[in-house]
Each structure stands twice: as C-alpha cells, then as structure tokens.
C-alpha cells in the first residue's frame, strides 16, 4: 500500500456485501436509461426506415416552379438529392388503363427511384429512354410479363402508348389494394402522355420537386434559407411530415406535442435513474459513516475522507456502468431480434447487433454524474464525523435521534418499524420518491399505449385480406361466388355484405339519410363485442329490425322506428340495438345494420356488394393469383394483405416497444424496492441483533421490517399516485385530447396494476432479508458487518 487511497479496493473487498447492493442499484439505473433510450432509438430508426419505404426518403416537396428553377435548386450544396415526380390517375378516376385495369402513371427522374425511394427497384433498371417503362411486380406475377416485353397503356383520349419493360419495382399497398398497376417512366415520356399543353412548369404536369437535404441537423433552417434564396412561398413547400417528425425536425403542431411528451417521458426516466442511485447510496450511509469515522480516528482529514468516499463511488462505477450499459445493449439486441422475427418484411433491415450511441452515452453520463453527486452528501457527512464519536464504537449512536418513537398508537415493534422509516428525513424522502417514481413512470407510459392505439388501429377481427367489390358498389355479386370461395382450401373465411347507399328515412319525424348494410352470422358474432345497447339476437332473427352504429350526430335510440321507402312499399324498421363501431365508418351518413332477410325485404336485392375473404395462413401469392383469375375482371379484386401486414408490423413494433417499456419499469420497480429494503435491513443488521438479544422474536422482527417497508410503500403509493395521475392527465391532454378530443379519466386499471406490483415487490423484499436474519445466530447478528 503506497497511498491512502489504496485503502478503497481493500475496503471494497471487506465490505463486498454492502457494496454489492449499491453497485446493483447503479447497474439498474444505467440499464434503465440505456435500455429505454436504446429502445426509443431503435424504434425511431425502424420508423424512419418504414417512413422512407412508405413515403420516400425525401424531406420536402416543392411545387409551382419551372424546370430551370428545379435544376438550380438541385445543384445547391445543401441538397443531397432532388428529383421531379409527377403522377397521373393516382385515384384511378382519370381513365388510364392497362389491359382493362387501372394504370397509375408516375413520371420521375432516375434519382427519384434510386436515391429518394428505398429498395424500390426489384429487377432491371430505370427507363433509359422515353420508350421504356418500369412496372409494378404484380404485373409480372399476374400477367406473366418479363423484361423486354411490350406493354400498351390506353389514355382516356383513346391513344395507345407502347413501351418496352425495362424493369420491375416493388408493389406498394395502394396498387395492390386498388387492383391497379403502377408504371414508372422518365419525366419526358410522362409529359408526352400528359393531356395538357407543354410548358416548363412542374405544376402543369401535376409534378413536384422532391428534395433530400444533406445536413439532417437543422433542416428547418435549411428550408428557411432555401425559401429566402429561391423566393419560395410557404404554400410552395410541403414537408414530408412523417419523416421530418421522426428525424425530430418537424414544425407540425402534432409532432411538436409528441416531442414535448417524449421529452417529459425521458426526463422522468432520467429522474428515476438519479433517484434510484441517490436513494441507494444514502441508504447505506450509516455503515459508511462508521467506517469513515474510524479512518478519521486514525488521523485522516475531512478532505481525505471525502476523497476516499468519492474514489469508492467511482470504483463502483468502473464495474457497474459497463455492466449496466452492456445489459441495456443486450436487451436492445434481443428486442431488435424479436422485431425481425415478428415482422421480417418491415424490420428485416434492422441490424440485430447494432449499437445506439445516444443511449450508451446517456447511460454512462447519467450513471457517472449521479453517482458523483449522490456520493457527495455521504462524503460530507462522513467527513464531519468527530473522531471521538467514531471511537466510542457504537455506530448506532452516530445517527442523531431527536425525538423518541411513539409507542402508544401501535405495538412497539410496529412503532419502531415506522420510526425507522421516517427517522431520517432525507432517507425517507429519497425512498418515497424512488417508490413513487415507479408509479409516475408506469402511468406516464400507459398514456403512450393509448396514443399508439389511436395512431395505429390494430387489425380488427373482421379485417379482410382480399375484398371482391362490385362495380359502382351495386348489389351484383352472386351468392354462388361466395359458396365457391367458401369451398376453396386457401380461404379461411368468406362473408358477404349488401349495401344500399343514401336511403332517405324518417325517424321520430326527422329526416335522416342512412346507408343500409346487411350482416350474416360471422359479422353478427364479431359485432357482439361492440354492442352498446339492445340485442344482436333480435336483429339477427326478427325481420324488420336493425341496429344503428353510434355517432354523435344522430340521436336514434333503441326502440325507435325507422321509416323508409325504397321502391313502392314503405317499410318500418325497429331499432333493436346500438353498436359502438363497425368496419365502415368513413361515410357521413348514419349506418343501419340488419340481417340479410330484412335487407331483401327493404330493398328487394339479394346479391352482394362486397365479399370479404380472410385467407389461410399458408396461402401463397400463386394461390391469390389463382383466386384473382377465378373471379375474373367483372369485379374489383382488392388485395389488402400488404396494407394489413404493414399495419400489423407497425402495431407489433409499437406494442413491443411500449409494453417493453412498461415491463422494464415494472421490473425496475420490483428490483428497486427489493434492493432498497435489503439495504435498509442491512444497515440495521447490528441493531436487529441487539433487539433479538433483548428478546425480540423473529416474528416481531418481521413485523418491524414490514412496518418500515409498508411506511415507504404507503407514502410512495400516495405521492406516486397523485403525481402519476397528474402526469397522466398532462400527457393525455398533450398527446390524446389535443388530437382526438377524448376526455381524460383516472387510469384506475393501470394504477391498480402498478400498486399490485409494488405490494408484490414488498412481500418479496421483506421475505429475503428476514430469512437471512432468521438463519443468523444472534451473536452473528450483533457482530455482523
């Protein structure tokens, strides 16, 4: 030993058991910060990838400029890539067709396909001249086309344009769902096909300039500079809101609210980490003070004692921070791997072993700073200990007792337990805060789940993989098609609906326009979960009855009669139920749902408007193409699988991320409580030994420890619930009420769950140290270090 500070590792070896708990606490806090920040980073990365795949990897679109201006803008040094992009027949209502199907025509520069879209080219190349075209992959699969084949696109004016296929690109969910084909051609080829006169203005060709900036840090500044220098108005520049939002660069008010909420959540996580470390260090302060008091006896100056304490804390960090960070990284890796397994289509590109630098830095910085700050106070306390007090050898006397415990209200062991909890104000506040922060974190993150459920609608039981839709939404699909589909082995379920739109009715002397829709058995079964009032059975079995779908605008109630007249006979329909939701809520009319029999009676129609198909899990693209061919061209074959898959992927990702957060918060709560109680018991081991010697039974000792733990828990629960509910309300207002107008309610379920977790943790927390004390003989107990 050459220097007095070398005492630190020696003492660490002796006090390994006490130090282990503090180290464990630092590991937990660093792990919490690293894992949560890492998960957030990975989530944002995957969402950025998703946004780039879905909406393109460009930041803004500029319209109403000329080709010359577009060229000038694309040559600016702050722009990484820029390309013109225009579209024809986007909504399928302009009459451009290919082999009788809708053709969506995109005219763009090569950079759009190669730099601004992610992995869009599946095979071949971007057209090199005006006679070449790229086509979506569904054409290859369904029509058997190959590169080099010639295709003809018909315009509404009757002209036919012939192109050679230069390549295939990935389908997007829009072309699949609308049963159309996408064509990608050069800008000049596109302009030749465009019906209006030639000019050099992009706006004349329904085109914009898509721009990707090179510097991602200050995109808003770059946009402002660009607007100023190129004299662009606000209306000319539109943001790719989703991508900019994920990059943290959006000025969209919705995104700003989301950023603010995220900042609050991250501050809470940081605060939780800080409180946990501070509480743990403060808890074993008594043992440390005794030890350092002895050092003072031997002749150390207060300054030297402070140095020793800080060195000791830093020594813990040397082990605890790398372990915490490593654990965080591994958890993030595991989650990334789970994401890849859950939705390989969308998260396949996430590297399983990627590092999140911000989370690692946050873990290290928060761990180190907190430990140093938290160690400062015990160090000061230790430095203040007079050598005389330390020399008396009675560590318990080092803790100043100002007021005797009140033994009149509770039994003596309970009174002492409560007194142990509240005797040191600072320790009490830290413990209560560390317990309550778990509730605050849990409730705050619960808001994020409600937010996810609003932004991403999970797939409903009635969600179809494929829909067969009659032209112009008439009742024209024969029942025999449904029967054929039901017999097909790749079809899991098929169900038809008849629609009658815009039916004028009178209800309670009010004129109401309703859309009348028929349900069959399956749809009635699914509707059971959404029944607000009335009976589905009545609607199913009794003719001339129906259900209304709730909407704030209509005030039709159960028992009301709807009078309608389609054709000659007026018909009365009795309302027997109200549903909260149905698969079709886009219409502004009210929705009346009835059985097929009632529908036939009202309208005289008995053919379906739409048949929905849910496919077997093992159905392949070839099977779907065969199905498409079986249905033929008379009906629209709407393939929703891709869109569903995307929704499912994002929903899983969100759920995994948010529930992952909640599980981590719950685990941290359990570990923190167990650790805090263990530390508190460890600090009093000697005293408990003395108690046992005087005659305190282990049962009474258990009650004493339970009373102490319960005091922290009850106070922590009360304060945590008040603060948690306040944060829940604040975040709910910012994230949900602001956007969707939902009213806030006290989150009783979430509150119940976290309180149950806390009570469960307390039981485990008390059980272990009591078991340890029970095993010790009283003499071991008294002389315990």
């Amino acid at each position, binding site marked *: 030993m050459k220097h007095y500070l070398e005492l630190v590792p020696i003492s660490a070896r002796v006090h390994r058991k006490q130090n282990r708990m503090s180290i464990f606490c630092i590991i937990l806090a660093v792990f919490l910060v690293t894992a949560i920040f890492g998960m957030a980073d990975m989530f944002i990365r995957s969402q950025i990838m998703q946004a780039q795949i879905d909406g393109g990897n460009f930041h803004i679109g500029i319209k109403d400029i000329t080709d010359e201006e577009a060229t000038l803008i694309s040559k600016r040094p702050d722009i990484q890539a820029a390309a013109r992009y225009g579209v024809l027949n986007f909504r399928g209502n302009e009459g451009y067709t290919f082999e009788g199907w809708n053709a969506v025509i995109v005219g763009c520069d090569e950079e759009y396909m190669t730099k601004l879209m992610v992995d869009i080219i599946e095979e071949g190349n971007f057209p090199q001249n005006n006679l070449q075209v790229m086509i979506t992959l569904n054409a290859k699969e369904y029509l058997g086309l190959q590169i080099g084949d010639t295709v003809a696109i018909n315009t509404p004016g009757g002209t036919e344009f012939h192109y050679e296929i230069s390549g295939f690109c990935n389908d997007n969910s829009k072309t699949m769902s609308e049963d159309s084909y996408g064509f990608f051609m050069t800008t000049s080829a596109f302009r030749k096909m465009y019906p209006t006169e030639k000019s050099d203005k992009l706006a004349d060709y329904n085109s914009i300039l898509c721009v990707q900036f090179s510097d991602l840090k200050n995109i808003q500044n770059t946009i402002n500079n660009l607007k100023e220098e190129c004299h662009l108005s606000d209306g000319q520049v539109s943001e790719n809101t989703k991508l900019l939002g994920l990059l943290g660069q959006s000025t969209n008010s919705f995104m700003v609210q989301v950023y603010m909420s995220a900042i609050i959540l991250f501050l809470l996580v940081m605060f939780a980490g800080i409180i946990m470390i501070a509480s743990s260090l403060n808890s074993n302060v008594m043992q440390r003070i005794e030890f350092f008091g002895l050092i003072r006896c031997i002749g150390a100056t207060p300054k030297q004692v402070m140095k020793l304490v800080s060195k000791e804390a830093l020594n813990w960090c040397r082990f605890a921070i790398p372990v915490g960070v490593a654990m965080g990284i591994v958890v993030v890796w595991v989650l990334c791997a789970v994401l890849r397994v859950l939705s390989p289509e969308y998260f396949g590109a996430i590297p399983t072993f990627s590092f999140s630098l911000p989370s690692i830095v946050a873990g290290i910085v928060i761990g180190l700073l907190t430990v140093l700050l938290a160690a400062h106070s015990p160090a000061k306390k230790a430095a203040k200990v007079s050598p005389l007090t330390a020399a008396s050898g009675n560590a318990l006397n080092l803790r100043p007792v100002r007021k005797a415990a009140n033994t009149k209200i509770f039994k003596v062991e309970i009174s002492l337990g409560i007194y142990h909890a509240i005797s040191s104000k600072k320790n009490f506040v830290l413990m209560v805060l560390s317990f309550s922060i778990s509730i605050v974190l849990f409730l705050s993150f619960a808001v994020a789940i409600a937010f996810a459920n609003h932004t991403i609608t999970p797939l409903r039981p009635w969600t179809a993989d494929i829909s067969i839709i009659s032209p112009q939404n008439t009742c024209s699909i024969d029942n025999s098609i449904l029967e054929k589909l039901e017999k097909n082995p790749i079809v899991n379920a098929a169900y038809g609906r008849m629609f009658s739109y815009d039916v004028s009715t009178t209800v309670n002397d009010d004129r109401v326009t309703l859309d009348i829709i028929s349900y069959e058995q399956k749809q009635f079964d699914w509707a059971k979960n959404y029944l607000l009032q009335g009976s589905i059975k009545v609607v199913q079995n009794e003719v001339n009855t129906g259900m209304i779908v709730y909407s704030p605008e209509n005030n039709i109630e159960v028992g009301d009669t709807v009078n309608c007249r389609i054709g000659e006979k007026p018909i009365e329909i009795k309302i027997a139920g109200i549903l909260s939701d149905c698969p079709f809520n886009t219409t502004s009319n009210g929705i009346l749902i009835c059985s097929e029999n009632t529908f036939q009676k009202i309208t005289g129609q008995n053919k379906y408007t739409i048949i929905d198909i849910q496919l077997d899990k093992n159905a392949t693209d070839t099977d779907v193409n065969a199905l498409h061919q079986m249905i033929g061209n008379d009906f629209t074959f709407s393939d929703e699988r891709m869109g569903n898959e995307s929704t499912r992927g994002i929903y899983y990702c969100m759920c995994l991320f948010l529930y992952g957060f909640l599980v981590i918060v719950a685990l941290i709560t359990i570990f923190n409580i167990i650790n805090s109680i263990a530390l508190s018991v460890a600090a009093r081991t000697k005293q408990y030994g003395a108690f046992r010697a005087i005659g305190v*039974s282990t049962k009474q000792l258990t009650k004493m420890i339970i009373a102490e733990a319960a005091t922290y828990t009850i106070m922590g629960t009360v304060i945590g619930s008040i603060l948690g509910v306040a944060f829940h309300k604040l975040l709910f207002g910012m994230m949900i009420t602001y956007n969707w107008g939902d009213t806030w309610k006290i989150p009783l379920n979430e509150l119940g769950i976290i309180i149950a977790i806390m009570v469960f943790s307390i039981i485990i927390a008390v059980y272990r140290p009591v078991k340890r004390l029970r095993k010790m003989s009283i003499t071991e107990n008294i002389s315990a270090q």
Partner: protein
Amino acid sequence: MEILKVENLCKTYGKGEAEVKALKNVSFSLEKGEFAAVVGESGSGKSTLLNCIGALDTPTSGSIFIDGQNLFSMKEEKRTIFRRRNIGFIFQSFQLVPELNIEQNIVFPLLLDYRKPDPKKVNEILNMLGLTERREHLPSQLSGGQQQRVAIGRALITQPKLILADEPTGNLDSKNSQDVMDMLTTASRHYQQTILIITHNKNLTASVDRVFQVSDGVLTDLGGVANETLS
C-alpha cells in the same frame, strides 16, 4: 432451588485446521439468588459461555437448563419468548434502543410481550437507578454510566430468573463501574435475583458469591469470593 444448570457444554468454531474449541465440557449450576462471576483472559471462552447460556448462540453439544427447562429443546420462537421472560441481558456496549426514551427502553421487554407495564414497578426501578428525573431523555443524552443503569433497569423489569451481564463495566470508569456493581448486588439481594456476570476486572468480584474461571475453554469453580483465592 437450582435456577441454572449447565451440563457438558461444548462449543467448537470452524472445521479442520481452523477448528477452535471455545468451550470444553463445561458443567456447573447456580442456585436462586446467587451472584456469580466468570473471569478469564481475553479469548478464553467466557463470552461464548455467556452467549450459549443466554441462547444467543447454539452450543455444539451439551445442555442448558433454566428453571428446569432445557433451552435448546425448544423451538426458536418459543425459546425467544422464554428468553424474553426469564433471562435479562446487560451488555458492555449497553445496546439501548436509540429511538426510545429511558422509560420506554426499560419497559421495552414488557412491550414486546404485549404486557402493560406496572407504573409502580417502573417508578421503583427508576428510583433505584436514580434516573427518575431523566425518564423522558433519550439514551444519547445520558452518560455511559447512566446508560448502563438503564440497561440494568431493562434487565430487571421482567423479574427474570437469571440476569447475564457481559463485561457490564467494560466501557465505564472506576467510579461508574463500582456504582454498577453495587446496583447489581442490591438487585441480587433485594429481589433474590440470580446473576452471572463476566468480567476481567478481578477487583469487581469482591461482592459476588461465587467465582468461576475459564481458561482455554475449561471452566474451574473457584468457590467463594475470588479475591482471596486469586490473590
């Protein structure tokens, strides 16, 4: 009437080369009202003997009977309650509960037994200890001698069959040490209290009835007042 009976008591710590035989076949007994002292060098085994008699530690073999009851045939919980009611402890470092005041510390064993303290008895003990004026004070507000007097009061309150005192004067000056010894002697005479103390201060054995010496784990009964024999 035999209050304490120790039979062939052995206590061994460690195993193999590290094995230490702290007590070797110790046997003796104490009658009611007897005031006995155990003397011996540091590390001779006297504290181990006291800890085993007080059921703070378990012997490797042998038996201890208090008022005819075998201490180690009882289960842990029952033994604790038995100890609480029948054995009073006085420690060298007092072991008072810092969170409780003097009166609360004295009645603590009664409270643990969920019994209501008799105010008369409490006042009597406080009087005897000379602490009536300080009954509301906390241990930290008392001197070492006063704290040890509180510990004696706590040991006396349950009127145990046996009081065990481990170096009760070890942390006190000679004046306070003599005061404590006088108080224990008074208790022994006044309440017919059986007391066994450990001390290495041979001068303090002047007032005891019997003296035992422990050397290398072996107990020797030195008979009457130690001073005569030892000197």
